[in-house]
């Protein structure tokens, strides 16, 4: 009897998980615990707050309120899958798991379940090819774009010539960190710089050997693909060996306040890529204050508003909201489903004017997607850390990556995937 009761109670609680089906559901697979919790928290806050703003100010999008149920993944793929399965039947439209591992897991699933997977700045790079990856979008930029933009920036700094220079890539020894290697190798052939690859095993709080190696080899520049504690440890070690910070460039995931603040003054001048603006100098924050922060509706009391990762989470929300708007326009109904949202994404066109309209002038690059192009232009810019003022400053304009190098790589990788998974690329005309 006792076991039966327990089983009943069990079934009841398990079933209770599913929220009522209504509204537009945008699940947030976030992680606020675990080794990357400090980073994931801020991103999830920004993501949630923007939708709260839309709900409070405009009553949702096109009159439909947006529901953002959160599910904790702890950056763990199994929990990520559980979260996906738990939310997918509640009318979920789009997933943004902020984890390359979970993304790889979901890519095959979303094409069967017909859900949109939006992975801005992470995930599988070749998902840019919409012919193969029908349901996955990674605009505005991906890992390979990032590597190329960084090299372009360095080319600019050196008057267009990098031959004979030494560039070291310090990377998180995981799927994510390995992404840029092939791109950088191709670019090094093209521009004649010397590339050395330095892996760091996650979590990576002990990096002495690697930085001693950098000190011995004296590379001219260091590019870092890191996440979590690895970033702080690397910036700290770089400061310790007095590596000139202005020659140290991180990918966008290695460019948040949590990465540089613990290092203090030593981090001054550190550069990182970004595809979104930072700080609170945007008109949207007036509304954000009025409708979200002051009434106490901000996620976690709004302690991270305006930080780099918060802004990136918000940017992801902005793009999703714009895609929903577009989808509503095409479908002629406010209550869209995931299939219609995908069409919305494929015709997404976020112009600078539109960004100004929603109170975020020059916040992100122009995004214009199509059936074949799910990755946008790949434009990114650089930001630099000012340790005294404790803020990031944007130091370059949006730069386009070297598509000449990237496009064949993307074609090659997505074709390999299509072959492996038995997908016939669809026709996009």
């Amino acid at each position, binding site marked *: 009897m006792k076991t039966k009761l327990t089983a009943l109670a069990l079934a009841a609680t398990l079933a209770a998980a599913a929220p009522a089906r209504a509204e537009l559901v945008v699940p947030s697979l976030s992680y606020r615990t675990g080794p990357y919790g400090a980073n994931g928290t801020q991103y999830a806050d920004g993501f949630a707050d923007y939708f709260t703003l839309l709900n409070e100010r405009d009553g949702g999008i096109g009159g439909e309120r947006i529901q953002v149920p959160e599910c904790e993944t702890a950056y763990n793929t199994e929990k990520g899958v559980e979260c996906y399965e738990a939310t997918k039947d509640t009318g979920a439209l789009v997933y943004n798991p902020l984890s390359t591992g979970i993304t790889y897991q979901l890519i095959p699933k979303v094409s069967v379940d017909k859900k949109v997977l939006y992975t801005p700045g992470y995930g599988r790079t070749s998902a840019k090819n919409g012919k193969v990856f029908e349901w996955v979008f990674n605009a505005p930029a991906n890992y390979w774009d990032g590597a190329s933009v960084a090299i372009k920036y360095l080319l600019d700094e050196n008057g267009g010539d990098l031959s004979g220079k030494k560039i070291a890539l310090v990377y998180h020894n995981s799927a994510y960190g390995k992404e840029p290697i092939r791109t950088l190798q191709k670019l090094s052939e093209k521009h004649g710089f010397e590339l050395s690859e330095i892996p760091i095993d996650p979590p990576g709080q002990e990096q002495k050997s690697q930085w001693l190696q950098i000190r011995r080899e004296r590379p001219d520049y260091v590019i870092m693909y890191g996440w979590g504690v690895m970033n702080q440890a690397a910036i700290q070690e770089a400061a310790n060996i007095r590596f000139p910070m202005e020659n140290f460039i991180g990918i966008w995931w290695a460019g948040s306040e949590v990465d540089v603040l613990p290092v203090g003054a030593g981090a001054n001048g550190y550069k990182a890529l970004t595809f979104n603006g930072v700080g609170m100098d945007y008109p949207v924050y007036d509304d954000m204050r009025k409708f979200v922060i002051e009434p106490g509706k901000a996620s976690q*009391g709004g302690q991270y508003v305006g930080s780099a990762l918060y802004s990136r989470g918000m940017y992801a929300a902005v793009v999703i909201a714009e895609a929903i708007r577009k989808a509503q326009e095409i479908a002629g109904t406010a209550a869209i489903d995931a299939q219609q949202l995908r069409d919305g994404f494929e015709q997404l066109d976020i112009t600078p004017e539109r960004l100004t309209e929603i109170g975020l002038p020059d916040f992100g690059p122009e995004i214009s997607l199509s059936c074949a192009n799910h990755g946008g232009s790949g434009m990114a810019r650089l930001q630099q850390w000012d340790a005294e003022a404790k803020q990031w400053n944007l130091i370059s304009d949006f730069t386009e990556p070297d598509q000449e190098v990237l496009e064949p790589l993307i074609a090659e990788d997505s074709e390999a995937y299509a072959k492996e998974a038995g997908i016939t690329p669809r026709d996009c005309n």
Partner: protein
Amino acid sequence: MEQLIFAGEVFLNGLMTGVMYALVALGFVLIFKASGVFNYAQGVLALFAALTLVGIQKGQVPFADLINAVFGSRLEQFGWTVPAALAIVLAALVMVLLAFLIETLILQHLVGQAPIILFMATIGLAYFLEGLGDVMWGANIKALDVGLPQGISDGIEQVTAGWFGYGYFIDRLDIWATIIAAALVCALVLFSQYTRQGRAMRAVADDHQAALSVGISLRFIWVMVWSIAGFVALVAGIMWGTKSGVQFSLSLIALKALPVLMLGGFTSIPGAIVGGLIIGVGEKLFEFFIGPMVGGATENWFAYVLALLFLVFRPQGLFGERIIERV
């Protein structure tokens, strides 16, 4: 020749890293010696200690998130800051309290159980403390600053540059860590050799039954040992926290201390120190010489393989007590 000079630098840095590993390993050894518990939670203890230290220093309200979630309030800070020295003392007191609680609530009920059960209990404890630390102080990354210097030591760089034409890099934090670790070991040795409690501790380590029969309170000794281990964890937490911020990953340093333990033996304090140095130097030199050939990032496993090789020849570790088996 140049390789040798570089190797010298790697060697020195390996020694320093080894000291940092030894600091964590020390806590394991203390507890294992006195109570036969293989305390997996030592790494989390270090994290918890460092979190508490930062929390006290910054005047954070403990359990702020929980209180806010339940009562809908918006508490964050008390609005004061506590000087570093006082905060360290307070954090040490918290660790003593924690030791007492662990003894009363867990260990006491598990007396006489198989070692693996005790080991699992400490893993449970590690989970619990990990959650508790986050609930108490929040999961964000915190900078820890108790006034320890960081960065390259100019003196050493200039001197070595004069000798070899290549300035060695030694982190000032590592130098301090070495000094503090040495002081800590001296204090522990003095304590266990020359005080009543210290002798009682050694007696318990030698033989529980015999110690009990001469009137030593096992409970008191266990609380004391866990307090000392908590204090060692605090010191380790300060060092590692200063290095890379206080956050979840701090607890993973326990994994770096395990090969040190294997190599040095679970029951020997000098073993922990020597083991730490061998592991630190070994993994750094391997990464320097062999790493580039196999693609790097070898440190995680090499430490274990090195320890394994040692064990095949000496199954009880370098300084461990000989295992005598009788049928």
